């Protein structure tokens, strides 16, 4: 379990990283925490000719707060988020999700941006950033643009980055004072990838009642207006959910059962006063 030979560059700036991406022409990978790419390299499933380490780029580990949002550098580790580097009003979901991702050793190195780019359907950040309505900032050597999180992920292990793009930061809106968050994942074992996962964001002040179902075979499934799944007494309409899951490609009845459980539990959390 040793990787095939590769060249290694530690980029000092986003522009430099992007330039190397451009020059390398194909068999090149950016590496941040390496918690997914590392095993793939060791198993020789990924065989890039060049690895560009971006963790030494100062701006990628910055955190910038504004009144209604926080912008998290792509190379901020999950452990840093767990430990409260990103905290404050309306940001509680971030640390609470972070602390249940994999194991501390993984969180110590794994980054929010790396996980999001990897786009593993069962990754917590994928579902979470979808549900929070995050925005991704992407740069090349000489351009910058923003992509909404739900457009950044294209499918399982597929993101919207162009060959020279570097994900630089992720902007997460704050919850309003009355905003509520629900999150539940079904794992056989603490720290393992989930087999079902749901996030619910209920933020009446911003007019948001959104639910996201993750750990599917593809892109997370977005329920833009979760009120459709709710009966008059506020409980979840199970048959509507099952039908919705079915029509969104979750063909396996056991998977639907687990997803239903995850969603109803996330819903219940988000309904708490």
């Amino acid at each position, binding site marked *: 379990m040793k990787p095939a*030979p590769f060249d290694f560059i530690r980029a000092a700036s986003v522009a430099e990283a992007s330039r190397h991406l451009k020059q390398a022409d194909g068999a090149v990978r950016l590496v941040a925490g390496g918690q997914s790419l590392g095993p793939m390299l060791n198993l020789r499933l990924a065989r890039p000719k060049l690895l560009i380490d971006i963790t030494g780029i100062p701006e990628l580990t910055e955190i910038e707060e504004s009144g209604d949002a926080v912008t998290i550098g792509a190379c901020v580790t999950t452990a840093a988020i767990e430990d409260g580097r990103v905290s404050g009003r309306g940001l509680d979901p971030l640390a609470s999700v972070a602390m249940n991702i994999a194991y501390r050793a993984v969180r110590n190195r794994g980054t929010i941006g790396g996980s999001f780019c990897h786009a593993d359907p069962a990754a917590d950040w994928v579902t979470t950033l979808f549900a929070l309505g995050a925005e991704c900032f992407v740069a090349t050597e000489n351009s910058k643009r923003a992509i909404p999180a739900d457009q950044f992920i294209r499918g399982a292990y597929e993101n919207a980055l162009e060959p020279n793009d570097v994900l630089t930061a992720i902007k997460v809106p704050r919850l309003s004072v009355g905003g509520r968050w629900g999150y539940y994942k079904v794992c056989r*074992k603490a720290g393992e990838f989930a087999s079902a996962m749901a996030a619910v964001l209920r933020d009446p002040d911003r007019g948001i009642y959104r639910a996201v179902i993750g750990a599917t075979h593809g892109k997370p499934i977005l329920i833009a207006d979760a009120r459709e799944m709710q009966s008059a007494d506020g409980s979840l309409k199970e048959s509507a959910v099952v039908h919705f899951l079915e029509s969104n490609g979750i063909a396996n009845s056991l998977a639907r*059962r687990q997803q239903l459980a995850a969603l109803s539990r996330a819903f219940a959390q988000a309904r708490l006063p």
Partner: protein
Amino acid sequence: MVKYGIGASVLRKEDDRFLRGRGQYVGDFRVTGLQEVAFVRSPVAHARLKQVHIPERFRGAVFTADDLVDVKPIVSAPSLPGFKRSAEPILAAGKVRFVGEMIAICVAPTRAEAEDIADAVSLDLEELPAVTDMLAACEPDSPLVHDEWNDNVFVEFSENVWKDDLSGATIKVSKSIRTARHCMFPMEGRGVLAYRDERLRNLTLVTSTQFPHCVQTGLSECLGLSHGDIRIISPDVGGGFGYKGLLCREEVALAWLALRLAHPVRWLEDCREHLAANANCREHHYEITGYAAADGKLLGVECVAHVDAGAYSSYPVSSSVEAAQIANLLPGPYMFSAYRCRTAAVATNKCPILPYRGVARSGICLAIEAIMDAIAQETGLEPHDVRLRNMVPPEQISTYRNVVGKQFDSGDHPECLRRAVDAIGVQKIRERQKRPEPDGRRIGVGISFFVEQGAHGTNVLASWGRPIVPGYEQAQVKLTVDGEVEIHVGTHSHGQGHETTYAQVAHEVLGVEIDKIKVVQGDTMYTPYSTATWGSRSMVHGGGAVARASQLLAKRAAQIGAWLLQTEVDKVRVADGKVIAGDSSVTLCEVARVWYLQPQNLPASVDTGGLDVTAGYRAARDSGTFTYAAHAAVVAVDPATGIVEILNYVVVEDGGTLVNPMIVDGQICGGTAQGIGTCLYEATPFDTQGQPLASTMIDYMLPGATEVPDIRVLHMQTPSPYTEFGIKGLGEGGAVGPPAAIVSAVNDALRPLNAEVFDLPLTPERILTAIEEAAAHRQGAAA
């Protein structure tokens, strides 16, 4: 006032280095000129191997079967009637028979470079249909694993004691049970370092093994060397569990390579090799039927069982062990008189099976306990009451012979079970089950009971036809010049704490301070030949030998001490590190100093055998010891997700006289964690082409700290009447009881839903499927 002797929870002497990261494992050895090895392994389960292409630039760094001309294959053929031999090549030639089978050795200065070479070697393979299911493998149209056989069965066993006609029995219950193939996963994988020692004129292998001397014998056979030409060093070993109780192909390959090349070579197994090439335990299938009277009294058991033994027969344990054990041990602790059992060890295109901790018994216990639970259902009795009705009463325990003639040694089985029932609080759980749980989960309680025959003696193992029959364990015990004690044993601790427990035995006899007793193990140059550590045998046989040798040493010391005290030898005794006669005494240190440094002060008649003695041990009854235990579990099953959580777990065990209760607790808890893995998490599924589908730890699930509950261990201590100090073997039982207890608890929780599961592991998918099928069945019945 027991402080350091038998029965004291002495802190483990070896833990000082382990906890400080100063242990010395194969990977810690530093040897100059060392090169690393990576293997080219078969990517497919069954194929003709037509050619191995080695790029020109790597010739000289790659070796194939064509190079290993003088090396004999590994053959483990027990002398059992009808056993079919399999020759396991060190490197495959002609045919590959499982994914991960070794095809070529690649050598380079670093492992990464060796893997680059392995990567560049290509194979010309003609794939054949793979034999992946042990039941289908027994069908007449199945492809053959070994072309020269006429079927895929290594060997069959049967028991048939069926005098009465039970067709009219009130109760007849049947179950189909399957246990999954999985990995043993010691913390340290296998590893081998091999070099030529020019000074000692031998081939030295530093290898992570449970039994250095057996590796020496196996290598001697494969390489045609004498035992004196081979030295095996087994340093600290990070867990074995049976995984390191065999002669490995890699050991033979590295030994050959070290003889061929001018520099030392090393191979360290990585996680991928372990997962993909070594899922080698526990895969059984049972069709079992129990007959009982209306009062729950068991009348008879019928069973047909299959063991997926894999492609070859491992040396020296062989592919037959588990199938033999099932036929012999299935009756368990219960009294009944009609028994029919047929078992088969079946060859498949998977890696060879090895006996994992508890060997076949976790499956056996699950099978017989499923029948006891089913009888409880039929009679309406509590499952533990059914068991109590069928147990051997304590007054008959040492005389009763069960349906296959097995005779226990000592103890009180019903009392053990009753203590478990009380400790887990069955009555309270029954009350709790009457109300729904606030979180919607369902609660269940389950108990398993089993007898753990361990420390089998020479006669028992000879009857299994093993190529290496364990003999009478020996120990060398020496009083050093400083009056300290050095113990040399051929058994090998791979986590059991022998450096502590053997010292406790010597302390018990000699009274020398425990810190001044050193245990030397793991080197064939310095230890008596031994079949080593497995099968819960070391404390009984090795400990017995340490006691015998210590007693002999005490006698020699007493002679010298008596002379120094100017008294008769029959007036002195050895205790507290002294030779004592009435109020006067000399220390063993003084005795040693006189013997080694001032022998002129001793009479001419002194025993010149000295203070360095070797003695052996045979238990008074050679059939093994019979530890027994009850495991009790309370679980919560989430019917919405299929997830099981263990809420409470109790073990009540009678392991005879306990040498070190703290170490015993560790053994039981560690074993139980593995049993929880077998029951709930661990599995290596294979696809129809024989590809293992869990080849990384993303797909292979081990229980972790959050999945293993606090295990409460309660002891009974009924000494064995047949062993030194009354010690019984107990290293494996922890892993035997959990599947039966947890399956019973989960099915208890699922009972209101009419669902039950007997397919291990109990995955959420299997539990949800059982729930859905039961619901569909109810709807069907309603419609």
